[in-house]
């Protein structure tokens, strides 16, 4: 087979790259050395563990879908607009990244809680969000949305508008351009954004416990269970962390289209 040759990377670059990889991987590996393997099977198959895992997968999937529905339009607008207010909006969208998740939870309560800004309206409609699985999904969406938006906007900007222009000149209306040209071209960026959002949702803890509380089967996701266990049973907490890691790596590995991040 012939090969398109890549321009080689400088050799020295592999030293810091390796260091970086080790820095991330080593702690996780070190953690596994703390696991009491004898108890492992019973720990991770307990009723509490299974129900938390299931809830985590369900809510993370729901919040990823929500992120896509909200994030694709937002990223498109940010990428294709210019002007001062767009810069401000972009900074605001990054907020959930900066906010410690617990503060994010407080903010969500301020907006959607019973006494929150929209609390009266929601109450009138008979909608109660706090302490439900919906609250978990909202909390996860709040913290994950910036991931999707940032990845996708970056991809859209880098891809540029050249192909969009060609498509429009061939008579495609904006919706068609978006669906058939713009988004397919940034599929890698979109996929990596969705994976990031899913991963962030899966690991979400602070905003969830603040906004949604922690009740087995309804709002106690895997990270909440791990936190719970940590106080009484550090071994169990580490074991469940490993489960979380494995699930995440599996989902990321399976979902990710080839060649994208």
């Amino acid at each position, binding site marked *: 087979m012939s090969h398109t040759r890549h321009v080689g990377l400088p050799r020295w670059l592999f030293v810091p790259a390796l260091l970086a990889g080790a820095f991330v991987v080593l702690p996780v590996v070190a953690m596994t050395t703390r696991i009491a393997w004898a108890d492992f099977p019973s720990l991770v198959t307990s009723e509490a563990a299974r129900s938390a895992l299931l809830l985590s997968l369900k809510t993370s999937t729901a919040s990823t879908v929500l992120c896509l529905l909200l994030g694709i339009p937002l990223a498109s607008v940010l990428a294709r607009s210019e002007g001062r207010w767009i810069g401000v909006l972009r900074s605001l969208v990054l907020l959930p990244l900066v906010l410690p998740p617990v503060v994010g939870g407080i903010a969500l*309560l301020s907006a959607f*809680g019973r*006494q929150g800004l929209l609390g009266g309206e929601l109450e009138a409609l008979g909608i109660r969000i706090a302490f439900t699985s919906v609250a978990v999904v909202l909390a996860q969406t709040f913290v994950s949305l910036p991931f999707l938006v940032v990845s996708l906007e970056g991809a859209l900007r880098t891809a540029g508008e050249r192909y969009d222009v060609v498509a429009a000149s061939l008579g495609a209306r904006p919706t068609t351009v978006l669906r058939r040209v713009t988004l397919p071209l940034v599929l890698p960026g979109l996929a990596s954004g969705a994976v990031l959002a899913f991963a962030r949702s899966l690991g979400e803890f602070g905003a969830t*416990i603040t906004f949604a*509380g*922690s*009740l087995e089967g309804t709002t*106690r996701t895997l990270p909440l269970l791990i936190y719970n266990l*940590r106080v009484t049973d550090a071994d169990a907490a580490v074991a469940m962390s490993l489960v979380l890691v494995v699930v995440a790596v599996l989902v990321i590995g399976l979902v990710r289209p080839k060649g994208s991040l």
Partner: protein
Amino acid sequence: GDDAGAGGAGTGDGGERTLTVFAAASLTTTFEELEELFEDAHPDVDVRLSFGGSSDLVAQITEGARADVLASADIANMDKLVSAGLAAGDPAEFATNMLMIAVPPGNPAGIATLADLARKDVELVLCQPEVPCGRAALEVADAAGLTFSPVSEEESVSGVLTKVEDGEADAGLVYVTDVAAAGDDLEGIDFPEAADVVNHYPIVAVEGSEHADLAQQWIDLVVGDGRQVLLDAGFGTPAS
């Protein structure tokens, strides 16, 4: 306290000495007051406080955090430190604490007794059973023959406080001192069953402390002259 690395006066011989105190989060307000008292009495000493969940603090010390004194909110966690061989001497109990019902201002759900917490229409939040306030809540319920079905089991007292203060929940079980600290944001309701479950606060100097003398002086303050500060904040006097 000053930034340890930024002390222009120098930290060498004759300079400032630092006393590091690890204390349970519920002691935040009181220990900050005691810090001022202590520093007034020892002008050459900088007291640095680190607050957190008792189990977190014990874990940190076992993992190598440099602490001179540990004040825990329960005996179980203190025992962990002792069995790890990191306690210098026997822990001394310096305060107690009891549960209290916390409700949002105005008490919208009309809670009056402990039994009201078991009502179906009451949205109750508790600490999770794994932390002291959660364990205490379970014991109180058992003793009273009640079964609670909380809408959420929080990871810490602060979680319960947030939910109740926000009016998100109708009631929660927290400590007397927490209600006192929250001021107008919360109303507290006493209940007789609380006396059955009393929380004990032990304090000890940490093994290997470089300032064993200062550590002992801090402990002396807490169990001695400083007691009034604790009482003012709602803590009870130690049993022994």
